[in-house]
């Protein structure tokens, strides 16, 4: 037998949807026992390609070849049987059941005689324990899933994939909600899987990670195959330029904002929850971008949501332009010209089934109220049009439902929503999360422009280059405490990490 060069080949795959060519002659060849990164902007066709692999879509042309054999995959169950499994970005475990039931869901080991079959819990326990041991995962098979961290749940999913004897495991943005340590843990598991000959298709936007973990990189753009490279030949800038199809001279816009006097002073902010933020004091200046860095669990989101009145405070003062103010609800925050762009766009940002107009105007309806409680719809539409034009939202019309837009465009609509309220202070929580490179640059440009206009911005970001490239000052948090405020001049990745891990043992 000749050695098979590629474990999986997706050859010349094309898929057309009414009006769009989602995949145009795309090729993906994965060598056995490698980590193969699949990259491209949102909308480049990565997920469509994966959906073809899992039989969710049927490609119009092209073949899927596993181990030299041509496959017909009709659904994800077929894929699983062929040894192809996927770890989704958003995990959907059964939270109120225990770990082992989640692993063996749908294929519980049974015992009994004839028609009297019962679930064999003992076997299930030992099988799970053996599986975890093999992968060096330290989780009690009897623990309830809801008590576990995202990273542990992800490990369970990976173990489950292994238990199916998967040869190919697709991981979609696996590190999006992991902390630094957890990412290391995941990489350890990935390297271990690679040693056993399992191939990983790794989908991520995080360049540093890709370069660190992957062997091969395939890049797509606009549904087309751009090429496959050895990871060692690539750099972040090279990848970006191939993804966006132009040379990217800079990742962040030129900044010319000049921070002025103190606008908002936050004093001794403390959450009623003892595990959350405590004794936070800082100043925010006019025309400044204040970055907040920290690991997941540093309570950054909790802090800025408290500043916006979404969370209660045990203690703390807000001094806006020299005057003490009370913020107890988002309505109070809005009154004081504060806006919040939340981290979870889908959960707390967009109204998916409503058109762009409503999504834009919803936080500013008071301004459109005419006599007799009626709203001035023309003005609403006019403002929406201006907003999408200014922020360059790509949409067929303002009547389009927001759920039909890409992540980046949704984010721009949400920024537009808050700009309508004409805020002086913008709180941005991971403003570029899940957004492709091109749209990221546009959002950076918007942020810079706002700072130049004299607006003050607090921006949470978990991406080091972003926080370093965009902030005038960087406030670092660890375990709910403020560990330092670094000036742009002397902020380095190292210094930030040192502060971000100050209280971690």
């Amino acid at each position: 037998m000749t050695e098979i060069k590629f474990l999986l080949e997706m050859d010349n795959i094309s898929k057309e949807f009414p009006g769009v060519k989602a995949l145009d002659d795309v090729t993906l060849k994965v060598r056995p026992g490698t980590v193969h990164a699949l990259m491209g902007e949102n909308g480049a066709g990565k997920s469509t390609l994966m959906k073809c692999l899992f039989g969710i879509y049927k490609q119009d042309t092209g073949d899927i070849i596993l181990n030299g054999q041509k496959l017909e995959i009709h659904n994800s169950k077929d894929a699983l049987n062929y040894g192809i499994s996927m770890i989704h970005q958003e995990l959907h475990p059964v939270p109120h059941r225990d770990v082992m039931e989640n692993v063996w869901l749908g294929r519980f080991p049974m015992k009994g005689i004839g028609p009297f079959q019962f679930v064999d819990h003992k076997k299930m326990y030992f099988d799970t324990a053996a599986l975890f041991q093999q992968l060096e995962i330290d989780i009690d098979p009897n623990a309830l899933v809801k008590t576990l961290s995202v990273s542990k749940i992800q490990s369970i999913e990976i173990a489950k994939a292994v238990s199916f004897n998967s040869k190919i495991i697709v991981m979609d943005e696996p590190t999006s909600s992991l902390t630094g340590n957890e990412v290391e843990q995941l990489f350890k598991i990935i390297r271990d899987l690679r040693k056993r000959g399992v191939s990983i298709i790794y989908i991520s936007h995080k360049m540093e990670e890709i370069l660190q973990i992957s062997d091969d990189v395939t890049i797509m753009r606009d549904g087309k195959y751009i090429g496959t490279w050895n990871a060692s030949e690539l750099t972040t800038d090279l990848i970006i330029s191939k993804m966006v199809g132009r040379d990217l001279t800079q990742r962040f816009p030129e900044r010319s904002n000049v921070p002025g006097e103190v606008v908002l002073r936050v004093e001794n902010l403390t959450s009623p929850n003892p595990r959350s933020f405590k004794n936070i004091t800082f100043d925010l200046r006019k025309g400044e971008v204040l970055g907040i860095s920290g690991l997941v669990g540093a309570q950054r989101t909790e802090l800025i949501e408290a500043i916006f009145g979404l969370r209660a405070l045990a203690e703390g003062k807000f001094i806006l332009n020299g005057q003490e103010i009370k913020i107890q609800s988002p309505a109070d925050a809005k009154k004081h010209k504060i806006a919040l762009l939340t981290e979870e766009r889908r959960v707390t940002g967009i109204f998916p089934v409503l058109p762009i107009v409503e999504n834009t105007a919803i936080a500013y309806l008071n301004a459109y109220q005419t006599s007799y409680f009626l709203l001035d719809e023309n003005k609403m539409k006019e403002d929406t049009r201006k907003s999408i034009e200014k922020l360059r939202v790509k949409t067929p019309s303002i009547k389009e439902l927001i759920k039909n837009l890409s992540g980046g465009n949704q984010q721009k609509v949400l920024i537009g929503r808050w700009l309508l309220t004409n805020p002086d202070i913008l709180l941005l929580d991971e403003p570029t999360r899940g957004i492709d490179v091109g749209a990221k640059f546009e959002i950076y440009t918007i942020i810079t422009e706002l700072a130049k206009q004299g607006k003050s911005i607090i921006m949470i970001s978990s991406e080091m280059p972003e926080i370093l490239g965009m902030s005038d000052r960087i406030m670092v948090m660890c375990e709910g405490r403020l560990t330092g405020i670094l000036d742009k001049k002397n902020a380095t990745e190292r210094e930030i990490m040192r502060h971000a891990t100050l209280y971690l043992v």
Partner: protein
Amino acid sequence: MNFDTKKLNEFLLQYAIYGVLLVLIVAIAIYNSNFLSINTLRDILMQSSTRVIIALGAGFVLITAGVDLSAGRVVGLAAVLSGSMLQVADYSRRFFPNLPDLPIWIPILVAVIGGLIVGILNGWIVAKFSVPPFIATLGTYVMVYGVNSIYFDMKPNESQPIGGLRPDFTIIGSGSIGVGPYSLPFIVLIALAVSYIVWIIFNKTKLGKNMYAIGGNINAAKVSGINVGLNLILIYAIAGALYGFAGVLEAARTGGATNNYGNMYELDAIAACVVGGVSTTGGIGTVPGILVGVVIFTVINYGLTFVGMNPYWQLIIKGLIIVAAVAVDIRKYISRT
């Protein structure tokens, strides 16, 4: 080419319910051509009138991703309240034997306020205690029936059906502008007026936009600075007032009232909304859709009785249409994702 088929499919799905209505009418008309007459039209519109008002109330709540089970019982409460105060002076079994002739708007207002109070209670329980709307309104459903029955059982009435309603009241339910085949029943005009007002609330007011937003994504609504609790209370209150008003019209239309009036009307109202394209997961629904939903059910009731179909078979058909409508609706949703 391909694109056109998709557009056509979407169009068909979008307007499927109008198609269903048309098919129903055509099928019944083929069976018995007498069905197509001005009298039929008037009867169907009249029978739809109070149901439209209840369904619009139910629609308010459904669009916020809630559900209001108290509707039918509020109809009964309002019918009894208004009826008890609007009996002719020489009726032998008056609810309040010595009550003078009140201006007609006072009992009507009392009944509507009764509905409003139940609505406020519903909204308050849902908003303040985060009780799921299904449970909150199930509770008030039972309570309102209890309250109404105590009132209805008071001496000297002691649970006797309320009758002998004043003609200046019953004419609201039975009178019309003009006479003969082309007359327009008051009750139909009232239902149209209420529909128009609700349409304005849905589409032109802050409350309406907030309602769609709360149903579309309650968390995003909170972050946008919407006072979700207050808006929910307002919405349930308006819904309650609409049920109350519908109860008054039921009393006027039928010339009487008992504590069992309106029993199970909430289910018809919810079914009509759902068939009319209101999403049970919230954020979606229109007034014209709700109107057509109601009319479809009236056409089924009236039309199938007209052709002499066994009423039990009618139930089966009604049930099928409810399930089919939601299945189509969900397909609409899936096709977009």
